């Protein structure tokens, strides 16, 4: 931090930071379009607006953001699954990264749902790119996307009977003795 930064008040610094201004504008727009109660856990890690929503709302939100003229979050950068085995009732999650190429705004949306009922609406009717990304999430985490045209494994073999990226499956075979490292816990 330079001495100049230190003299300005925190509020002024916030007001001058273009990322913060943009994120505030995006959040306000999200609240107008979908209601403030649709988003929880709003934060800005490393300048990227992040919000959690529900799987009932996610399809409508992403479709609405694609159509919205003001924000135009029309580019689905990536999506991926995530597994928190300790969050009971919300073990699995999907994380979506959206990008507006016209205004250079990014948004990260998250949804969480129970591992016993991993059903999420597909986005492949909004973004063609979602097709394989969802197949990958199904392959790795076993997330079932309702309405997906061809939900089958993409990277792993078809007769695999588990979802390898879930945390319950260790990277290495737990029964192996030859690789045990007592000191550093491999």
């Amino acid at each position, binding site marked *: 931090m330079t001495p100049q930064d230190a003299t300005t008040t925190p509020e002024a610094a916030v007001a001058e930071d273009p990322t913060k201004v943009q994120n505030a504008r995006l959040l306000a727009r999200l609240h107008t379009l979908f209601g403030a109660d649709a988003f929880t856990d709003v934060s800005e890690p*490393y300048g990227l607006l992040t919000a959690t929503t529900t799987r009932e709302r996610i399809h409508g939100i992403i479709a609405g953001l694609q159509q919205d003229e003001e924000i135009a979050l029309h580019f689905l950068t990536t999506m991926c699954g995530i597994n928190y085995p300790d969050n009971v009732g919300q073990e699995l999650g999907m994380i979506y990264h959206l990008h507006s190429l016209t205004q250079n705004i990014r948004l990260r949306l998250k949804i969480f749902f129970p591992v016993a009922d991993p059903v999420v609406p597909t986005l492949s009717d909004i973004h063609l790119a979602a097709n394989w990304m969802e197949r990958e999430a199904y392959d790795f985490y076993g997330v079932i996307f309702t309405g997906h045209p061809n939900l089958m494994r993409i990277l792993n073999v078809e007769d695999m009977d588990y979802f390898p990226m879930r945390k319950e499956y260790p990277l290495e075979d737990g029964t192996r003795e030859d690789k045990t490292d007592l000191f550093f816990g491999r």
Partner: protein
Amino acid sequence: MAVNDTLEGTHHIIEEAREQQDKILLPMHNDFNQELTTLNLGPTHPATHGIFQNILQMDGERIVSGVPTIGYIHRAFEKIAERRPFYQITTLTDRMNYCSSPINNLGWHMTVEKMLGVTVPKRAQYMRVIMMELARISDHLICNSILGVDTGAFTGFLYVFQEREKIYEIYEEVCGARLTTNMGRVGGMERDFTPVAIEKLRAWLKSFPTVMKEFESMFNRNRIFMDRVVNVGPISAEKALSYGFTGPNLRAAGVDYDVRVMNPYSSYEDFEFDVPVGTNGDTYDRFMVRNEEIWQSLRIINQALDRLPEGPYHADAPHYYLPPKQEVYKNMEALIYHFKIVMGEIDAPVGEVYHSVEGGNGELGFYLVSDGGRTPYRLHFRRPCFIYYQAYPEMAVGTTLSDAIVILSSMNVIAGELDA
């Protein structure tokens, strides 16, 4: 588990797999005037330039439908990364887009630096820019010259491969490796450019433009080449965006999205360069956009080399950057830090970060979730060609087999990145 149970389980799985197989292979065409041929293009076909399969339904020479099958070299990098300390993940990124591995390596380091809040000195940033642009040139050279091979022009390929060899010699001089470079460290570069490296770089910068001009004069207005590529496999800007295209393939469709310009990283804002765009996104446009990007990359390298600042080549971040080996033997602190870094005893901050760089074939993104431990909790790679390759069937349907091969090689699909 009893043996019978195991067998029963297997039967069930095999039955399901067969049902799925039937679904892929036999789209029922009950038209008796039309007899379709099923053709396996790949997995090990010389024209796929990588291990992936396309099951094509052909009506004579026309492609009626295509089903891509990928995953032949899937190595579960995202799973492996969950067990590795941050600095050991570089070797995984090498093996994704192995035609431009420095971009992957340095992109990953920048992601970790962003998470840790480490600022890299200007000199290291410029050095990184030079290496990344060299990687982009070698990536584009391979793609364009292979496209030449697929249209029957072998000479251009051999000619520019000499230049790629020289680029690899520069890599060798900078980091000691050629293909899987493992270049750079979290916090900067692993060593400064040697005088030999600078000399090789300058010599190459002088000799390469002549070769590139000859390469372009061989193809750009060549009647035979243009007949094979103009208006082959076009894609509209809307379709390309919906399919998640990035990089030269998107720019060929007319969208000027370049991560280096939109979200500059590693001091790209200091350099002057143009972003070439095409008009209708056909194979010829993709070829021409890549050629022009090679010239722009040369411009960037020249500017960076001329203005290469003096100073340290790595950040002062002893918790993450390995101390020099001589120090480890003599200096207590260096020994402690060396031990802590190698044994992975230094924890990272809790948080999540997305960082993207302009890779050889598009936006290469790293989404890193850290729970504070020595390894990522979750690491997701946004691999550009995994996302845009799903458009291939749509682009290939209606064309002939020879056109489909040209489209495939102009898309620059790298099997290592596709399957991760």
